[in-house]
């Protein structure tokens, strides 16, 4: 039984397994030695069964077709002629033909699948920039109209999502925590006190400091809290989420 040993490989189904056996035997797809291939096929099925794996029903269906073909081949063909001409006249359909065509067709798509695989690997080496945010070019009033029809499908939605996932990232999302160090709290404290020194009226946090990258805003806010704690500035806020008004308390030179 050793010579029937199946190469350790994953198969995509009975046709894939069969194709593998035929190619391994190096025989013509349209002239398969059915008895031999069937035996090898059955060995594989038995191996799967011994492993107590669920043998997919498709494998069993193929097994029975193979056995059927094998027995048809064993039936004596009446008047099997030696001459080609006569053979053609008498020819009944080769019991293997349908299977051979099926295998041939499957083989072609398997090759096409390989082609696609290679193409995608090549495509993955190409990158493009993210689209520029064009919203800034739009008239906001136009965008506001709710009633207009939206022409998009679920496929558009999925395609957009998948495209986004394959984009190269200039800054990874987690990056912000690292970059935070670029704006030290001390530095931001100095900036705040300098700005306040230039103004005699309270300064709006929103307008003066809530600009730039989010990590900078956070650092600025922490710096502000530190200044409040130190008693260098005073803050007023009318309610949750309202703007914060900041004012220097007496002399506060951090330079």
């Amino acid at each position, binding site marked *: 039984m050793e010579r029937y040993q199946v190469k350790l490989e*994953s198969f*995509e*189904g*009975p*046709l*894939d397994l069969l194709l593998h056996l035929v190619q391994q035997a190096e025989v013509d797809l349209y002239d398969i030695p059915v008895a031999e291939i069937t035996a090898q096929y059955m060995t594989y099925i038995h191996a799967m069964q011994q492993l107590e794996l669920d043998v*997919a029903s*498709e494998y069993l269906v*193929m097994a029975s077709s193979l056995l059927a073909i094998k027995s048809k081949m064993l039936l004596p063909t009446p008047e099997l002629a030696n001459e080609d001409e006569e053979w053609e006249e008498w020819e009944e359909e080769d019991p293997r033909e349908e299977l051979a*065509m*099926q295998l041939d*067709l*499957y083989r*072609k*798509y*398997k*090759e*096409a*699948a390989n*082609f*696609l*695989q290679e*193409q*995608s690997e*090549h*495509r*993955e*080496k*190409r*990158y*493009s*920039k*993210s*689209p*520029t945010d*064009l919203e800034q070019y739009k008239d906001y009033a136009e965008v506001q109209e709710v009633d207009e029809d939206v022409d998009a*499908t679920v*496929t558009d939605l*999925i*395609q957009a*999502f*998948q*495209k986004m*996932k*394959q*984009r*190269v*990232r*200039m800054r*990874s999302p987690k990056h912000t925590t690292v970059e935070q160090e670029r704006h030290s709290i001390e530095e931001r404290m100095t900036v705040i006190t300098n700005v306040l020194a230039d103004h005699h009226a309270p300064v709006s946090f929103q307008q003066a400091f809530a600009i730039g990258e989010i990590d900078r805003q956070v650092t600025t806010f922490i710096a502000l809290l530190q200044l409040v704690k130190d008693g260098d500035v005073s803050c007023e806020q009318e309610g949750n989420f309202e703007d914060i008004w900041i004012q220097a308390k007496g002399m506060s030179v951090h330079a």
Partner: protein
Amino acid sequence: MHEELTGIIETLLYVSGDEGIDVARIATVLELEEDKVSRELERLKEEYEEKGYTLQLMKFGSVYTLTTRPKYASYIERYAKPPERSTLSQAALESLAIVAYRQPVTRSDVEEIRGVNADRALSTLVSKGLVEESGRAKGVGRAILYVTTERFLDVFELESLQHLPSIEEDKEQEVEQMDLFLSNYKDLQGDDE
């Protein structure tokens, strides 16, 4: 206007990045014949090749996109964070090949060729935006028909479906396929009325 048109098109190509620009949309925006826009894009595409510009102008379906050249991939990957690649299983790739060559196809068409259930492979392909449903087949059961999407061309670097290499199917099957297509087409036309 020639030089001007080139400039406008290159500007819009840059702005739209990986979304690319669609010939029809450009024609509408610029109030030009689609033909003229197409010709200019094709001319530009060749110019980028001939002059060996750093970037390449690629066509995927009706969309043109500027991309970097493969030889620079490693520098980009060192500079920025490349995306996580999700590879398609062999089952999905084989099913995709069948959809691509024989579209529109039903699930059972795919199953017949591969000899195994294609349920899962097809839903993976739909979820990757490579295949979409496109109406239903005529006859009993009115099975869902599947076709490839625009994204399919992009992911597999194909200008069009005609750029798929020939796999020389039997004539008989081609005829059969054509019949199926025509009958579906008629059916669709019928539905519209």
